[in-house]
């Protein structure tokens, strides 16, 4: 294992070394006629839309050429890691501002600080703040996601159900479905990351004007001294999540992973699913004809908070000598008309002012985003080394329902400091 790992690493180091050398050679030759070539490292699969934006940018800036290095997100992570470790920066990099490694690189000064540029005003304030690391802006957000409930409109109609607006209505709807022999919720407990994700969504869905999970958990991490034991909201979130998984999920949810849950929902094997807005494309891939919608998970008196975050972003890296040109591209991307191109493809809500999202599936969700009821995925703002531990903990909880062990474990994870 270890040997194979390092061999791959070393090969990658050598390969990037070669790429770096050839890139430097290319740079020298372009200096004379003031042509600049920038590398954009792209980890998502939607390369056609970014290429369209690049083409438009190149038409406006004939002296700047942008070369797209496209990888799928699995290998992208390794390539990013190798290039960070060997100091071979890319001029522009697409990443996720919620990811620990990206935030660590921002903290180390490897990404260009964009706070001083006027054009960053075009980012909606909430998402500007979410993009910040230590109060400085290092990236331009491209689209946003939210933790929601996906529902099958046809099944709702057949059972004369309306979109529930309170927790009691949600349970009533689930009871009706259960009585009609329809699986109310599809859970993907076989995927441990999905388990903790659902808990995070639920913590936002129990929030009210006195409490919200971001302030509470991040506050705890930063030393507020608060305790899980004194806190009814955490307990309520865990109880409600377990209730849905235990009472209203399909048979044997522990055997269902993310991909399978998408197939099942797409085939109408269940009426609802707690997930993120990103699931829409995965569901539609399995069944393009599906008549689905998404709503925010309500608490006792309606929807107070919805968990939301930035999906991909683009950042410029330091140490390339071409930071100014890279920033020019970021300015271009942050313009409303160009952000609209991205949103038209992506169908997710946009963090850029004035962009319209034409996507009936998330109509019910968009309102809350516009009203500013979105709070960030709080786990991204606590210690970095907890991701897999928290996922394991949440999965164990959904398996055995041991509330005390779960809350104690969560407390330990939230309080854990980097060492």
């Amino acid at each position, binding site marked *: *294992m*270890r*040997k194979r*790992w*390092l*061999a791959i*690493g*070393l*090969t990658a180091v050598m390969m990037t070394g070669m790429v770096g050398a050839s890139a430097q050679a290319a740079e020298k030759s372009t200096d004379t006629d003031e042509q600049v070539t920038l590398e954009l490292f792209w980890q998502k699969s939607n390369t056609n839309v970014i290429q369209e934006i690049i083409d438009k940018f190149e038409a406006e800036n004939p002296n700047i050429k942008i070369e797209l290095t496209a990888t799928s997100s699995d290998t992208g*992570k*390794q390539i990013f*890691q190798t290039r*960070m*470790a060997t*100091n071979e920066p890319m001029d522009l990099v697409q990443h996720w501002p919620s990811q*620990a*490694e990206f935030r*660590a*690189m921002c903290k*180390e000064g490897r990404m260009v600080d964009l706070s001083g540029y006027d054009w960053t005003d075009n980012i909606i304030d909430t998402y500007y703040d979410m993009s910040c690391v230590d109060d400085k802006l290092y990236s331009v957000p491209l689209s946003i996601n939210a933790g929601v409930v996906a529902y099958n409109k046809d099944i709702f109609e057949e059972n004369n159900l309306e979109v529930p607006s309170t927790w009691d209505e949600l349970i009533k709807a689930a009871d009706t479905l259960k009585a009609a022999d329809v699986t109310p919720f599809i859970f993907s*407990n*076989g*995927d*441990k990351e999905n388990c903790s994700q659902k808990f995070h969504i639920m913590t936002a869905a129990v929030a009210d004007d006195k409490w919200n999970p971001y302030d509470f958990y991040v506050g705890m991490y930063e030393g507020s001294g608060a305790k899980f034991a004194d806190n009814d909201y955490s307990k309520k979130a865990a109880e409600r999540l377990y209730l849905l998984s235990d009472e209203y999920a399909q*048979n*044997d*949810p*522990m*055997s*269902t*992973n993310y991909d*399978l849950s998408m197939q099942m929902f797409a085939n109408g094997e269940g009426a609802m699913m707690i997930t993120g807005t990103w699931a829409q494309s995965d569901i539609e891939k399995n069944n393009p004809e599906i008549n689905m919608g998404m709503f925010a998970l309500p608490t006792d008196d309606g929807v107070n908070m919805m968990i939301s975050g930035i999906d991909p972003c683009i950042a410029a890296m330091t140490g390339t000598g071409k930071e100014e040109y890279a920033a020019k591209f970021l300015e271009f991307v942050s313009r409303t008309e160009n952000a609209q191109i991205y949103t038209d493809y992506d169908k997710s809500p946009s963090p850029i002012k004035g962009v319209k999202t034409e996507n009936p599936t998330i109509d019910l969700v968009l309102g809350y985003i516009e009203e500013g009821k979105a709070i960030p995925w709080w786990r991204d703002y606590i210690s*970095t*080394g*907890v*991701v*897999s*531990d928290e996922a*394991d903990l949440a*999965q*164990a909880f959904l*398996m*055995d329902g041991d509330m005390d062990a779960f809350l104690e474990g969560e407390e330990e994870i939230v309080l854990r400091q980097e060492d």
Partner: protein
Amino acid sequence: MRKNSISHKRNVSYMPVIVTALVLYTVFFIVPALYSFYFSLTDWNGYSLEYHFVGFKNFVKVFRDKDLFNSIKFTLIYTVVVNATTIPCSVFLGILLTKKLRGVNFFRSIFFYPAIISMLSLGLIFNEIFRRMLPMIGQTLGVGALETSLLSTKAGAVAAVIILGFWQNLSIPTVLLIAALQSVPGELTEAAKIDGAGPLARFRVVTFPYLASTLVICLVKGIRDALVVFDYIISLTQGGPAKATTSMGYKIYLMGSTDMKFSQGCATAIVLFLFIALASFFIMKVVGRGGIEQQ
């Protein structure tokens, strides 16, 4: 004298081959191994340009980690069960497949087939089998035991990983043992038969000594492969449910990639390496004794 110079000449002509292999091995295995030891003494997170020496702090952490015991336990159970089942089964299969049967080559390739599929794809295929196919069969036929997937309980998931491990790891030892079995001189078996030795006695006295060195290879390879099991885990169970199948290999991977604890991952890898080295040494000393040296 004359003999010596010939063998000396022969050795010289082998040198370029050996040196090339040695250089490649050093560059791709020894240097990275030393490098990983170096990083295990630092606090490097896998991304940063700066890091500090922290001495043996990471090794202390490895042994303080409360999940480490869990990982070692699973890895050991997997290693013992998989090897204790595959090796005897492959001896048995090997004997069957060296008999003069019709279509024996067909069967040999069938049994070798699992070895040529990538472990990651195997994990994905078995994912479908365990998560979808078996429960569906269980529900249709009303077999209660099959209705819930093996992967949804801790013990079941361990069993599922072992089943997959057994299925894939059977092939290589079988092929190696077929080769070894073919080297058993027919006249020895004949002689033993004439002396009145039964099949079991013939196997113990005549066949086994010829298999011993191959068995050592199979065991060392089997144990090494099992101790570093990783690919099935990532595609079949992700170490779950609730950490039940988090092997040492998968744990190291998580530390190096998701959790930004590269140096601690290196330290864990070194502990695992020492483990494998000790186990291999022990097997070669104990099992390797008493076999016939073959060329």
